[in-house]
């Protein structure tokens, strides 16, 4: 037997270390469709709790939208379940091409290629378009999938301080001798909820002849007046060379992602990106659902407008209650608690009050910056937000952190 006791014990020891470090991840089983109101089994084997979901990426409330579900059913009937092939052999249907065209139009780019996920898009895009003669310069807080993609690419890589344009400019000067330069950022940063200064970044990239890649997974569908993304918010549509994004969050929330941008770069991905070449693409049933999502969003901005109003209401309520928030204007609203244990205790107490929100701490966020991250949805009604505010305030009082400064909270609970 290859999996000897010695090998098993080695893994058991490692798992215990993860548990002892307090970073063991445990799944909570949801027994209902994804929505603002969900039924959760937690811990495993416990009875179902009805809770308000404050931690889904379901920004537009489309995950279980009846029209999207109906379109998926129709797509399943019309185009079948699976493709049993990668795209370039016999795994491409007309609807894959149709979705690529719709995404191109929605994002205001030149062309689009689908990937099984945005994780795959980010894993594949860099090595498809860059070589050892090039350099990638990324914001220090980019998503883990970008970091993985950069690691898979032979180009040199460097980083700049989060959203620090002076530091970025220094790095662009430092790497002026490279054949190609690519600046890489998230559009909306998922842990802090702030946005990249894309207008300034576009200017710097033009000045130093660098390409710009933006992962807009936490923006596509709702950031910008028409929900086109962070590039719309900053008035630079058509000037981003590559946008990667996901259909697994606001755009229906099922799965799938894409690379959208300059047609030559998209073509390079079609020829060379390994997750595209060696994996089936998005299943027809999901493509059909996303197509309906794109139609809904192209017809009206009602859902992103409601989301914006909800997020503003939520931020205002928490601020008035006396919580310390990360500043921003996106539906990602982090409530700063600074201490890791406090964030875990706070999350557990929220759950007892019927509110599902998760505490994050090092290494997911920097040390001393533990927080509860809340994510607002167009699927939330005011009564959801009011009930959540009531629960947050009650628990905030319990721990005596309302109206306190950062230093006062740290003095009491530690970093």
């Amino acid at each position, binding site marked *: 037997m290859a999996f000897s006791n010695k090998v098993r014990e080695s893994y058991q020891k490692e798992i215990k270390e993860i548990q002892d470090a307090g970073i063991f991840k445990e799944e909570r089983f949801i027994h209902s469709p994804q929505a603002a109101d969900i039924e959760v089994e937690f811990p495993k084997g416990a009875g179902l709790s009805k809770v308000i979901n404050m931690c889904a990426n379901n920004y537009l409330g489309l995950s279980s939208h009846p029209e999207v579900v109906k379109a998926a059913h129709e797509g399943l009937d019309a185009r079948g379940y699976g493709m049993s092939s990668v795209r370039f052999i016999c795994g491409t249907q007309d609807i894959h091409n149709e979705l690529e065209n719709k995404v191109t139009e929605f994002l205001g780019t030149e062309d689009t290629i689908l990937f099984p996920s945005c994780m795959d898009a980010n894993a594949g895009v860099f090595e498809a378009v860059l070589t050892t003669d090039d350099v990638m310069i990324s914001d*220090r807080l980019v998503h883990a999938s970008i*970091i993985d993609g*950069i690691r898979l690419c032979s180009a*040199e*890589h*460097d*980083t700049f301080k989060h959203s620090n344009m002076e530091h970025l400019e220094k790095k662009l000067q430092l790497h002026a001798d490279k054949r190609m330069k690519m600046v890489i950022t998230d559009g909306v940063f998922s842990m802090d909820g702030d946005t990249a200064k894309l207008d300034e970044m576009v200017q710097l990239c033009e000045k130093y002849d660098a390409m710009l890649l933006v992962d807009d997974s936490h923006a596509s569908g709702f950031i910008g007046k028409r929900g086109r993304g962070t590039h719309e918010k900053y008035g630079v549509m058509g000037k981003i060379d590559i946008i990667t994004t996901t259909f697994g969050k606001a755009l229906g929330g099922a799965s799938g992602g894409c690379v959208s941008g300059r047609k030559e770069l998209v073509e390079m991905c079609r020829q060379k990106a390994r997750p595209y070449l060696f994996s089936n693409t998005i299943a027809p049933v999901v493509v059909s659902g996303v197509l309906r999502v794109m139609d809904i969003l192209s017809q009206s901005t009602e859902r992103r407008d409601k989301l914006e109003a909800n997020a503003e209401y939520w931020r205002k309520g928490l601020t008035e209650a006396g919580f310390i928030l990360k500043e921003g204007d996106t539906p990602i609203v982090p409530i700063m608690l600074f201490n890791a244990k406090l964030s875990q205790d706070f999350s557990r107490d929220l759950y007892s009050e019927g509110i599902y929100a998760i505490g994050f701490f*090092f*290494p997911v966020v920097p*040390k001393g910056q533990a927080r509860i991250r809340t994510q607002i949805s167009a699927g939330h009604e005011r009564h959801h937000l009011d009930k959540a505010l009531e629960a947050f305030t009650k628990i905030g009082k319990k721990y005596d952190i309302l109206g306190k400064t950062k230093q006062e909270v740290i003095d009491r609970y530690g970093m």
Partner: protein
Amino acid sequence: MDDMQKMILEYVEEEYLEDEDEAIDVDTPLISGGIVDSFSMVSLKRFLENKYNISIPDEKATPEAFDTVDKICALVKEFI
């Protein structure tokens, strides 16, 4: 503090610390302390190689070897 310690400390402060961060010293854990992530370590390695005209093999450029300014100095001295 010798010249090498001073120069590396200054570079780390300039390159990695944000305004609100606490001051660091030659024995402050940089990577295990969450100040420098292992991914951003690359620019530090490049700085050292250019500054001292050396080449640090990847297998030597471990997060442990880069964890404090003192350890970095010790590593650099191996290759000067």
